[in-house]
Each structure stands twice: as structure tokens, then as C-alpha cells.
């Protein structure tokens, strides 16, 4: 059975993330280990108070050769990709540039730049002279700048399914390699703070005014963050963590509410396990989607309980970084990989006191111990669900 393409495990030969917890995975693993949130008041001019995860430090403008693609989004993407540069160069030398694919998840692309340009146009009647909709806002803009920066010339696309986008990129990457269309794939996600998502989530009354508290009886909404994460998958190579399966499903229920029993989320987790040929009992940690909104945390917890039971430690990392939307799936896959490499389950920050309707084992204190298989869920608008299954080396 292991030889079937859909049951191949692909090594994660390198990965990197950057968000409010830090610009490097070393900084991020320290923050996750310490149980320290980095959410703070949102810097955008908004008609409400909310906590946000802001990418730390100065985001350098793009080099002159890529200046037409400059955006907050592309600055974040390239800052994070720098952490992967050596590994990507090695993969391109090993496999050839046309055999290295790129799959990137984003929910809103560079829409922040269009928001600014639209405002300028409304005030002056013209768009800013340097503004380029296709390169600074459209999804192919961020895709092109990543391909130019890395030199990867294989099949490339953006996956955009709202908050499941960059979990699903790992499914696309896996299939691309299984079908022989690529030998390595740079798979990741990036999103920046913008008015569209912050005001949009506010219109749905889904934002907390404070740092979000997933699974807590006192939760009152989510917090939005920005950042990026990229993972390098290869057909072969040494790695401490492997991609075992990616389950993708739909709720077929509602545009902005989850199925009340978490049916779609359950199907995604079951599919990931099926691809890996693993029993649910093999899962020793779940990085939940856990946004901190009242309905979705309960629905997801029901789904997790139905698949892996109520004794597997469950953590939402949204209380640390906020909800990174289109970058959430890849970011939390990196968190899960860090959990495996550093042998710990992070505390589910802000969860105490846990909602009595949530019957899974929400991890209230960091736990140390070897992990062999970790599920990471991302559940989105329109009922788009993904569950990513990562494993340590056997």
C-alpha cells in the first residue's frame, strides 16, 4: 500500500515562518515555548478596537529589479523566503529549475495597495503613478515575485480559498509531486493586514477587542495577524519532519458559519489519515484552527473528538499570532513541524477556563514529549476545510 502515490510521505527539507512572534523560526519556537502572545492594538485606522499580530521590525522595500512588485505583502513574503534561500538553491541545483514548483496561499493578495490607490483615486481622480494593479495586488503578482526571487521555474499557482488557502497548498504540492509534474515544491502562504479583512470580520461581529482566547468559556471573537510561511517539499532528502497526508473537504452548509457538528472538518481529518494509512490513535497532537469565535470552536472540537477522541492534546496557536487567514495553514504547519522537531505541545494560550461544551483535551500547559503524528486544521469561509498531517521520522 505504501507504494501507491497517494500514500507517499514527502520530506520537509526546510521551512521558515515570520509573523508577530518573530522573523525567524528560532524566535517563533521561543515564543511558542514560553507561552507568550505577541498580539497588540491594531495599527490601521479602524472604527473599532481590536488586537492584531503585526510583522515585526522594518520591512525593506523590494530590490530595484523587483520594485514594480513592491507591496507590504511581497515584503513579508521575501523576508520569510530569505530563511529558505540556501535550501531552495540546493533543490534547484539537485532537480533543475523547471522541476521545482511554487504553490502559494493568500486570501487577499496585495489588496492593501489597491485600498490605498482607490482612496488616492477618489481624492485626486487619478491612481498613484507607480501603482500597478497586476503586480502589486493581483495574485499573479505575488506568485511572479516569488518565482523571480527563488528562480523556481516549475508549475506555479496561487491557491485562494480564504482561511484554508495555505493548508491546501500542501495538498496541491503533494499531488504535483505524486503525479510526476515536479520533484520539489516551495509551498507556503502570505497575507498582510488590510482594511478588507479587518473591517470585513468586524462586520461579521467576529473580532475580539483583546487578544483572542480560543476554546475559552470567555472567548468573544478572533484576532487577525499577518505573516508568511514557506515549506520546501522534495521527492527525497533528509528531514526531521515529513508530510504524510492532506485532507480537503467542503461543509456544504453556509458561507460564513461552520457546519454545527464540524462535519466537513471531520471529513478532512479522516482523509488525511487515510492517505497516510494511519489509525486515529496514532495522532498525538492537533493544532486546531481554533479562531476564538463562539460557534466555530465548538464545531471543530466536536469534529476533533469524533476523529481522534478526547485524550489527544489540542492547541490553538491563534492566541499567540492571531489568525493569519490565507497564511494560517502554512504558518500552523510550521508550528506543527516545530512541535515535532522540538518535542513539545504548546500551551493553548488564553483557553482557561475551557468552555464546558468543548470536550477535547485543550492543552492548558506546555507539554514536553516526542510527537510522531500531528494534525493541523484550517477551516474557511464557504466551508472549505483542510487538515494537514505531519509526522516525525520513524
Amino acid at each position, binding site marked *: 500500500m505504501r507504494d501507491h*502515490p*497517494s500514500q507517499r510521505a514527502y520530506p520537509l527539507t526546510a521551512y521558515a515562518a515570520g509573523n508577530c512572534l518573530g522573523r525567524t523560526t528560532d524566535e517563533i519556537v521561543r515564543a511558542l515555548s514560553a507561552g507568550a502572545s505577541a498580539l497588540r492594538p491594531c495599527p490601521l*485606522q479602524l*472604527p473599532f478596537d481590536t488586537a492584531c499580530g503585526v510583522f515585526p521590525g522594518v520591512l525593506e522595500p523590494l530590490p530595484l529589479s523587483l520594485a514594480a512588485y513592491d507591496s507590504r505583502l511581497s515584503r513579508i513574503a521575501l523576508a520569510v523566503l530569505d530563511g529558505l534561500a540556501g535550501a531552495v538553491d540546493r533543490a534547484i541545483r539537485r532537480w533543475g529549475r*523547471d522541476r521545482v514548483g511554487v504553490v502559494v496561499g493568500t*486570501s*487577499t493578495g496585495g*489588496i492593501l495597495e*489597491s*485600498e490605498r*490607490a*482607490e*482612496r488616492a*483615486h*477618489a481624492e485626486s481622480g487619478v*491612481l498613484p503613478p507607480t501603482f500597478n*494593479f*497586476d503586480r502589486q*495586488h*493581483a*495574485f*499573479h503578482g505575488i*506568485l511572479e515575485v516569488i518565482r523571480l526571487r527563488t528562480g523556481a521555474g516549475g*508549475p*506555479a*499557482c*496561487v*491557491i*485562494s*480559498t*480564504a482561511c484554508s488557502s495555505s493548508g491546501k497548498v500542501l*495538498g*496541491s504540492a503533494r*499531488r*504535483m509531486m*505524486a*503525479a*510526476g*509534474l515536479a520533484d520539489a515544491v516551495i509551498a507556503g502562504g502570505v497575507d498582510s493586514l488590510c*482594511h*478588507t479583512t479587518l*473591517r*470585513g470580520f468586524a*462586520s*461579521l461581529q467576529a473580532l475580539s477587542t483583546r487578544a483572542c482566547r480560543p476554546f475559552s468559556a470567555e472567548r468573544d471573537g478572533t484576532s487577525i495577524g499577518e505573516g508568511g510561511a514557506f515549506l520546501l517539499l522534495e521527492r527525497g532528502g533528509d528531514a526531521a519532519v515529513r508530510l504524510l497526508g492532506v485532507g*480537503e*473537504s*467542503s*461543509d*456544504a*452548509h453556509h*458561507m*460564513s458559519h461552520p457546519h454545527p457538528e464540524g*462535519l*466537513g472538518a471531520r471529513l478532512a481529518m479522516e482523509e488525511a489519515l487515510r492517505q497516510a494509512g494511519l489509525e486515529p490513535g496514532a495522532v498525538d497532537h492537533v493544532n486546531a484552527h481554533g479562531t476564538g469565535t463562539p460557534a466555530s470552536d465548538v464545531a471543530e472540537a466536536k469534529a476533533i473528538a469524533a476523529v481522534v477522541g478526547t485524550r489527544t492534546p489540542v492547541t490553538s496557536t491563534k492566541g499567540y499570532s492571531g489568525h493569519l487567514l490565507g497564511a494560517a495553514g502554512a504558518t500552523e504547519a510550521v508550528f506543527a513541524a516545530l512541535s515535532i522537531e522540538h518535542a513539545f505541545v504548546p500551551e493553548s494560550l488564553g483557553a482557561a477556563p475551557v468552555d464546558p461544551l468543548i470536550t477535547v483535551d485543550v492543552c492548558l500547559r506546555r507539554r514536553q514529549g516526542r510527537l510522531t503524528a500531528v494534525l493541523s486544521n484550517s477551516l*474557511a*469561509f*464557504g*466551508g*472549505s476545510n483542510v487538515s494537514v498531517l505531519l509526522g516525525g521520522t520513524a
Partner: protein
Amino acid sequence: MNGAYVSGLGMWTPGFRDVESWAADAPDAAITAPVADLLPVPLRRRVTPLTCMAADVATQAAREAGADLAATPIVLGSAYGEVATAVAMMSSFREAEGLPSPTRFHNSVHNTALAYLSIATGNRGFSTALAAGAATPAAALVEAWALLAERGGEVLLVFVDEPPPAPFAPANPYPAAAAALHLAFTPGPTTKALLSGLRRAAAAPCTPLVGGLHHHPCAGAFALVAAIARRARGAVSLGPFDAGGWEIHVEPAGDA
């Protein structure tokens, strides 16, 4: 995987209700809105024009192939997605207190059409929404190809784009348009063509397309639909047409 069998097609753009009328260049000025009967009336009132186009062509292709939309995986390819809805929200951000309508916000995501199709048909299986500019048709075919290689069965490819609205309108205008192709791992009673040899190719210009669709970001998909409809044999350029393109080989059914 050797190839994929095309067993159903769908097409909509203003003036053309289906593949047949479009391939015959027989416009009808009365065709100004897609048919979204697939969506129940309460949903139809809330959806976007882009979602209605996707529903129309998905229904056409599934009907022709005899496919069950409740059980068929869907790959949605769109360069700009719900860009008109996203831009319409922006004017509310100029007001200090402005918030978009919740419906408009959740309708602005790239996977909006997939979500409504899934809700309308009860499909809880695989679907995905992707974008790659002028390479969107090739990227969607890569995803569909890999999905068929992994699972066998069938997949519905849906392509849809509308031009970005002012002040972001494209330099070369094109109409809103959508197409769908039902692909299967094995041939069926309605199989029209066999696709094979999806690969990188030298840049080649897009052949002129009825309805002014050669500037459309999914032009490569329309070129493929046109080639299948006229039973052409040979390589079809999927775009991008300026550089770094993709092509696929088309063999009409019955000629193999």
C-alpha cells in the same frame, strides 16, 4: 497518467448561452445574464455575477457528461476572482466608520462560487480555487491532472473571470466569461476528446476568439474549448501567450 477524457463542456459570455452558439459565432443580443437555476432562489438573491456564471457553465458541462455535481470534485481557475465585489467594498473604507456589508465581505473571497455550488448541491468532497494570471488555464489543468492521477474518477474544471472594475480596469478590455470542462480518467458515452501531453511550450500567440476573449485571462481555456468543439487535432496553446507558455494535445474522440 496517459490522458484525460473530456466528456462535457460549458460556456457563457454576453451574447452566447453555450458552446454551440459561441463556436458557431452566432450571438444573441438577448443573452445578457447567465442561467443560475442550479442555485436555490434564496441563495441566488445573494450571489455575485461571477458565481452565477460559474454555476451556469458547471451545470452545462455536468449535464452533458451525465456527472453528479454533488459528488464531482471541482477545480476553479480564475485570475482575479470576485474582484468587482472586493473593489465595491473599498469605497466604504474611505468613511471613518465604514464597514462593508457582511454578505458582500463573505462574497469577496476567491472560492465564493465553489462555496455556493457546494451548498446548492450538497457536495462535501474536494474542491479548490486557484489563480495564476494568464497561466490560470495551465495551472488549473496541472491541478486537475494531478487530482485525476491520484484518485482517478472525474473532475470538473471551471474557468471564470470578469474584468477588474474602475479605477482598476484593464488596458485591453475583455468581457466577463466562463467555461467548464468535465474531465474523466476513463472514456464515457459522451466523450468528445482525449487530452494528453500537458507540457511547457514556446510562447505562441492566442488564436482570435469569438466574443473578443483573446484578452481574457482564461483565454487559453477558451481556446481549448474551441478546439474541442470544432474537433481539432493537435497541440493547443493554453497561455501565457507572451512567454513561458503551456500546451496540451487534443485528439477528437473516435479518431484515436
